[in-house]
């Protein structure tokens, strides 16, 4: 947990200080990709030893889809609640929350759909969701249980927050995290477009 906060915080400070040369932008992107692949490969190796995790998926059967569905309903309900007590419209709140933590896609989509400022807002909101997940996942798992911990990550539970999920649950939540993350990721674009255009 301390390592997570320190790594992220040190990175933000380093980037913010301007010490990182802008000529190495491409290197940074590659660094992120390689780290993600190393992380996911390692999680896969650990998963091979976690027989309980796969048993859980098998025993749940089709009910496994209930988790991402509940998480998406919950995310959108939370966003609707914010719309009630803020100057933002319901449409805007739902479109932004439909990023489910995938900040690059939701931000770009909303900007391309003709609302650049809402795109920026979606970018920031979904960055915050990812950071909140990384920092709070451990106690959410302890207090609210496994499904709640997976749900908190939204679309990120199959990539950036998968390592933390694996850490806090001893690998048990990895299959659920992947299933939930994939389904969330598949739903981001249709949901963002639906809420921004038609609602």
């Amino acid at each position: 947990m301390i390592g997570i906060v320190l790594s992220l915080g040190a990175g933000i400070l380093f980037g913010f200080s301007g010490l990182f040369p802008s000529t190495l932008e491409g290197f940074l992107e590659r660094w992120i990709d390689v780290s993600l692949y190393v992380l996911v490969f390692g999680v896969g190796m650990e998963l091979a030893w976690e027989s309980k995790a796969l048993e859980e998926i098998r025993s749940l059967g089709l009910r496994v889809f209930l988790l991402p569905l509940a998480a998406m309903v919950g995310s959108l309900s939370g966003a609707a609640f914010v719309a009630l007590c803020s100057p933002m419209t319901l449409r805007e709140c739902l479109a932004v929350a439909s990023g489910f933590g995938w900040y690059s896609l939701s931000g770009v989509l909303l900007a391309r759909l003709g609302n650049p400022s809402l795109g920026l807002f979606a970018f920031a909101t979904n960055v915050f969701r990812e950071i909140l997940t990384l920092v709070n996942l451990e106690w959410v798992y302890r207090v609210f249980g496994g499904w709640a911990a997976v749900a908190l990550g939204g679309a990120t539970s199959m990539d950036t927050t998968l390592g933390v999920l694996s850490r806090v649950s001893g690998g048990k939540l990895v299959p659920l995290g992947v299933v939930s993350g994939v389904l969330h990721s598949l739903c981001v674009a249709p949901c963002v477009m639906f809420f921004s255009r038609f609602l």
Partner: protein
Amino acid sequence: MMWLLLAVLALGFLVGRLVRSGLARRTGKTLSTVGLLFLLFAMGVRLGQEEFLRMKLASFGLSALSLAFAAGAGAVVVAGLAERMVRKRKRL
């Protein structure tokens, strides 16, 4: 990207299954820890560099944070209730 990640996860799983020794488990744990810390640091650098985010954060930072919190909290509550429901049904 998503499918490539799933392929890498499956490859790691396959290697872990083939090797099936304490060494594979330790290697997996080390790789995921190192990968996670490097990833978080690099993500932090990228976020810290986002010029527009820094400029706009003062104006909409609190709204963005409250929406992120509400969406996350909603997901936690509804998924937590769904898990309870599923476990109760399993026991019946």
